[in-house]
């Protein structure tokens, strides 16, 4: 085996009282493609940020080229040849493609002046290197997510890099683009560069990795070559349990009644001719790649975008959802994609976060707010959702990701919705809370006859919890399937390759 390039030994990191990393180890050899896998919130991103010098570890040290570093800073890490492509890509939306690609490199070379000819040359070379053609003078803010991802990749290979860390680089890419990316990765490997590839997609790990390491709840679970492992073992490493979840079958659903129906819904640039019908007691899943139109659809159904044509019916009555206020009135709830910016009021108390959507219903006759009733209502949801907290008055920031997500869910359940739309409801949520949320959604469908629309890119989440699954691709629904007819690899294939 070749020399060790980077070794992270016994790294620990705390945030407040929360242990994000507990003495984790990671060893990367030269010229190796190493996959770091784990559920959301397992500590992958924290370790990446420590290696890139964004965070200082509380304990342990990093060895790079056999030299020990108790901690790194950002510039040091770049100088050593470590490049990170973050999931949010860290690009500058206000600058051109050429500058986005070349700027970090020029900065790294300690240039003080900008030679625009050189910038364009560097950018052109980088794009040629990975075989992609994007106009150099385009402002990046106007490009698609996939293009942004490719720009971030082009940027990182410019350096005299020894290690490139890619945090979920494929989440926005079509299968074709993934192939292209893998080709680039193998090319880089041949050049002697090590790749740390962070993912939770099993098939990708098997396809590309030499070696993999699994994190769970801030601990290293296992690290071994990628060849000798089965799918089941893998899931066990990742989740810590063998999945005994049953497929949801909507056994109480009333298929004669329509609760939430969408007919020929179109959104300019977003999607076309979307049709579906959710019956009471059903959980309908919609899945597709990032940028496939799934989030746009969710936002349109909740009144955040204005549909260009098409009709929405609730209990067979045509309705207009032009704003979230309309949705609220029509008893349509929406658990958003990005908890931190769209779901939570981080500087406010748990209580305030729970009652915000319901505040108008808490008004007494004299227009004042009955906060006492608000507290009672909140307590009910806290109990039934199993939210662990100290006191309702505490800040929402004191809660874990899973409990925070349950608060967002509880907020919407208190509005007594008939239709509940959830967009990536378990992103960044620990496994325990994830199963709690799934079980609660099933209960809502089965016992309360709710219509639930679950939008997610988490294959197993969709497969297990939705009795019907729609696949969306480039703004079109490309197929409808029963979950019992599919397994995870079939579903994965359907999403990335499309149908027909």
């Amino acid at each position: 085996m070749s020399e060790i390039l980077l070794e992270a030994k016994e790294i620990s990191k705390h945030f407040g009282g929360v242990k994000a990393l507990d003495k984790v180890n990671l060893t990367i050899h030269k010229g190796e493609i190493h996959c770091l896998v784990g559920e959301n919130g397992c500590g992958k991103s924290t370790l990446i940020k420590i290696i890139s010098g964004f965070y200082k570890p509380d304990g342990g040290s990093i060895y790079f080229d056999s030299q020990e570093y108790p901690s790194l800073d950002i510039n040091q890490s770049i100088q050593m040849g470590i490049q990170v492509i973050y999931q949010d890509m860290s690009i500058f939306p206000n600058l051109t493609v050429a500058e986005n690609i070349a700027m970090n490199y020029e900065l790294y070379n300690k240039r003080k002046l900008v030679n625009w000819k050189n910038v364009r040359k560097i950018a052109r070379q980088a794009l040629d290197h990975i075989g992609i053609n994007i106009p150099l003078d385009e402002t990046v803010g106007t490009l698609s997510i996939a293009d942004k991802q490719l720009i971030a990749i082009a940027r990182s290979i410019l350096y005299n890099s020894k290690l490139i860390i890619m945090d979920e680089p494929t989440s926005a890419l079509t299968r074709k683009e993934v192939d292209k990316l893998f080709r680039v990765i193998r090319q880089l490997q041949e050049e002697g560069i090590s790749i740390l590839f962070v993912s939770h997609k099993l098939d990708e790990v098997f396809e590309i990795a030499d070696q993999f390491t699994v994190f769970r709840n801030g601990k290293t679970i296992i690290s071994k070559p990628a060849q000798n492992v089965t799918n089941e073992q893998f899931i066990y490493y990742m989740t810590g349990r063998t999945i005994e979840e049953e497929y949801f079958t909507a056994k109480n659903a009333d298929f004669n009644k329509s609760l939430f129906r969408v007919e020929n819904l179109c959104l300019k640039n977003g999607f076309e001719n979307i049709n579906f019908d959710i019956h009471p007691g059903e959980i309908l899943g919609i899945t597709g790649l990032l940028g496939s139109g799934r989030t746009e659809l969710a936002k349109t159904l909740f009144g955040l975008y204005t549909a260009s044509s098409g009709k929405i019916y609730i209990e067979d009555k045509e309705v207009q959802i032009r704003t979230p206020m309309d949705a609220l009135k029509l008893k349509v709830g929406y658990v958003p994609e990005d908890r931190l910016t769209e779901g939570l009021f981080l500087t406010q108390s748990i209580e305030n976060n729970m009652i915000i959507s319901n505040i108008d219903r808490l008004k007494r006759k004299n227009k004042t707010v009955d906060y006492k009733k608000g507290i009672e209502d909140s307590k009910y949801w806290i109990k039934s959702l199993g939210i662990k907290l100290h006191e309702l008055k505490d800040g929402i920031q004191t809660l874990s990701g899973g409990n925070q997500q349950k608060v967002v869910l509880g907020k919407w359940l208190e509005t007594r919705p008939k239709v509940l739309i959830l967009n990536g409801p378990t992103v960044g949520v620990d496994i325990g809370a994830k199963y709690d949320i799934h079980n609660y959604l099933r209960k809502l469908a089965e016992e309360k006859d709710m219509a639930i629309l679950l939008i997610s890119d988490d294959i197993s989440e969709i497969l297990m919890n939705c009795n019907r699954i729609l696949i969306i691709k480039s703004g079109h629904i490309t197929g409808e399937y029963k979950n019992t007819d599919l397994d995870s690899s079939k579903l994965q294939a359907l999403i990335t390759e499309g149908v027909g």
Partner: protein
Amino acid sequence: MKIQRLLKRNEFYVALIIIILSLIIQAISGQFFTANNLVDLTRSLIVPGMMASGLFMVIVSGNIDVSFPYTAMLCMFAVTKLFQVTGYQGPVILGFLLAAVIGAFLGMINGVLAAWLKLPTLIITLGTCTIYLGFTQGVLKSSVISVLPEPMKNMVSANLFSVRSAATNLGSSMHVSILFLIVTLLIVGFIMKYTMLGRGIYAVGGDPVAAERAGFNVAAIRVFVFTACGMIGGITGLTQVTLSGMCQINFFDGYEMTIIAAVVLGGANIAGGSGSVFGTFLGVVLMKIISNNLILLGIPTEWSKLMTGILIILGVCVSAYKAVSAERKVTSNILKDAAGEEAAHE
């Protein structure tokens, strides 16, 4: 292709408005394109032009500064007083250096506070500008200095050239300090376009987190833009003295507003990350043409404040409204990808 890109640029439209406006004024009064009017107009651009180029950097970095007119005022009085008290007779350049140092220091205070406290810079600079005003009035005990020290007095009459309009027989002289404006614009333009520092300012204004990850020292960039703005403010203060031959406390009254308006009109995004020095300069030209010709345009001078307000609002209205309506639309076409791919398959 070239023309399309030109049409996308904000500067093009500002320039277009300037041309149309000057033609209108010429048609009404017949006096716009006279030598002396053009010289007067250029002369009136010096002070606001310099200030705007300093503020431009602050705005691109995603911050705001309302203290620079007060920095200018303080430097103006401090240096003039110092010369008066010491009876200094040497070259005037020392005064400008001094003003630059004091201005840079005052600007640095803003920058350090902004980088450290991470509070809205409007409130921070509102606080410091009150301090600078109080210091000028209280400690320097200044409101008017009508007799300037020798070195400055000499500079007041230092003109590059003079012109006289045949028709009106009005004469105007181009003051030497136009060179300051030109140099400031060139330096700021160079920094913003051709140095990593300048690109860092754009980067911080576009996405501070990404800028930090890229290895920019975000705090240092913040301190730099405020320091530079203060330094330019200081020099501008002294320039104003040599232009008008005296010091007056109300020279820069309301400048924070008009300069912000000019920068925004020139196409800089108030939230940071975009704009150009050339656009900023055009913004100043537009502002000055309007304010110099209010009467010609049939607007009494009492209403000039109203005009700046309307200009600011109009200047930001379009881009703000575009951003708001874009929130309700999908900007990059998801559907097009599908079409493209299908075409590729065939």
